[in-house]
């Protein structure tokens, strides 16, 4: 890194576009906390809803980590463009379509839906449904992030492990994942952030949760949209500000963990 006294053109341009990203967020925070400061925005209904969102997003992120780490590893080592493209699909289709797809899959119209219902696993307006949709839409974010983590790692320890007789999957869990634990955790948190921000699919498949312990609770994004319909700007903006604050905290934790990883690897 070279230190320059005067920022160059690229730096100035980067600062300007960063500000463009910050503006709407800053507006929500300022108006939410300072201008409107609506009491409904701070009510228990909002906090329950944020709790549901954090809970479901973290479970979704954990499931994504478990299920998609092998795929991300596989793609990063064998560069299968077909698998890569497929894993990107859910990121490139409008999310209401994801919601509609799940509604169809889990409905009594399909054999799979009938099977799920017969074993008592209804996904409609339920926590499993919410988590499934969140996992689906946040998976590409994780796969991309994890893939770049794996690609940056040297492959020698893996070759050694396989030479010693470990299968690829054992190599993944005994060598690759422990070596990249921090960066993978950071990737998981990034995909959790994506899950927190989801609206389109869950407004269809899990608009409000009907079961204990979140009976009657809406995911935060749905609740905020609903508040806008009920009460107009004030409560919606205040609730949004609370939600944004929590999302920023998750992102900061993710950055912090990633930062530790970078510092260590530099030793």
């Amino acid at each position, binding site marked *: 890194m070279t230190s320059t006294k005067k920022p160059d053109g690229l730096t100035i341009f980067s600062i300007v576009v960063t500000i463009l990203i910050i503006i709407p967020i800053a507006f929500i925070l300022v108006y939410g906390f300072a201008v409107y400061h609506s009491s409904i925005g701070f009510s228990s209904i909002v906090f329950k809803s944020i709790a549901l969102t954090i809970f479901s997003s973290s479970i979704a992120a954990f499931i994504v980590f478990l299920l998609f780490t092998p795929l991300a590893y596989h793609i990063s080592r064998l560069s299968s463009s077909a698998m890569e493209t497929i894993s990107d699909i859910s990121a490139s289709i409008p999310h209401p379509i994801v919601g509609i797809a799940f509604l169809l899959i889990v409905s009594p119209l399909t054999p799979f839906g009938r099977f799920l219902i017969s074993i008592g696993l209804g996904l409609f307006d339920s926590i499993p449904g919410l988590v499934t949709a969140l996992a689906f839409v946040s998976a590409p974010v994780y796969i991309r992030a994890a893939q770049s983590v794996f690609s940056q790692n040297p492959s020698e*320890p893996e070759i*050694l*492990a396989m*030479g*010693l007789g470990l*299968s*690829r999957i054992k190599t993944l869990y005994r*060598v690759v994942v422990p070596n990249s634990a921090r960066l993978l955790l950071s990737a998981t948190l990034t995909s959790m952030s994506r899950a927190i921000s989801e609206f389109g699919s869950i407004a269809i498949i899990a608009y409000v949760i009907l079961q204990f312990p979140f009976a009657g609770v809406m995911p935060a994004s749905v609740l905020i949209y609903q508040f806008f319909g009920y009460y107009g700007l004030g409560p919606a903006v205040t609730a949004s500000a609370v939600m944004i604050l929590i999302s920023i905290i998750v992102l900061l934790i993710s950055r912090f963990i990633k930062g530790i990883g970078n510092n260590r690897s530099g030793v």
Partner: protein
Amino acid sequence: MFKALEVDIRKRLGEFELKASFNAEGMIHIFGVNGSGKTTLLKCLAGVIRVDSGTIVHNGIELTAIPIEQRKVVYLDRLSFFPNLTVEEHLSFLRVTEVEEIDEIKRIMGIDYKGKLKNLSTGQKLKVSLATSVLSHPRLILLDEISANISNAESTLNDLVPILRRQKTDMINVAQENSQTLEKNFTFNIVNGKITGVED
């Protein structure tokens, strides 16, 4: 003449072509300048790189199509170690090795240090990796220019010979130059992907 290791392979990588044909066993030393194809040869033998044609046979078993994890051929270069494991964890990586065997190899190789691998010097790391490889009883151990990073590398390798012989493990040590101190059974020179025997 029958030897434990019989290699006759071809591999093209862009402009470069590896044409390696040799029979050998025991401690095998291969030397050549940068870009002569040493690493490519070792990676073909280990199964990391698939060969275009030819065969790799060890003690009558054809290894050419056997996947890397079943081949029992260990490839080591200076990044081949598990940074998050302690020395003890590293040596018992396969979870089946007897304590006595670990102790024996630690004594022979002078591994009297502890701690996580990532906190050790390069030479210390590579000694642990090499020991771990020997403990896995492989057919072949391939050392890709790691001697330069280990102090007294060649005497360490010489000390390992009885164990390697006992467990029928052959070893290929690759370096930039020929060695006078290594107790080797065969020596080869590799130039532009072609390998020729050298009489010591």
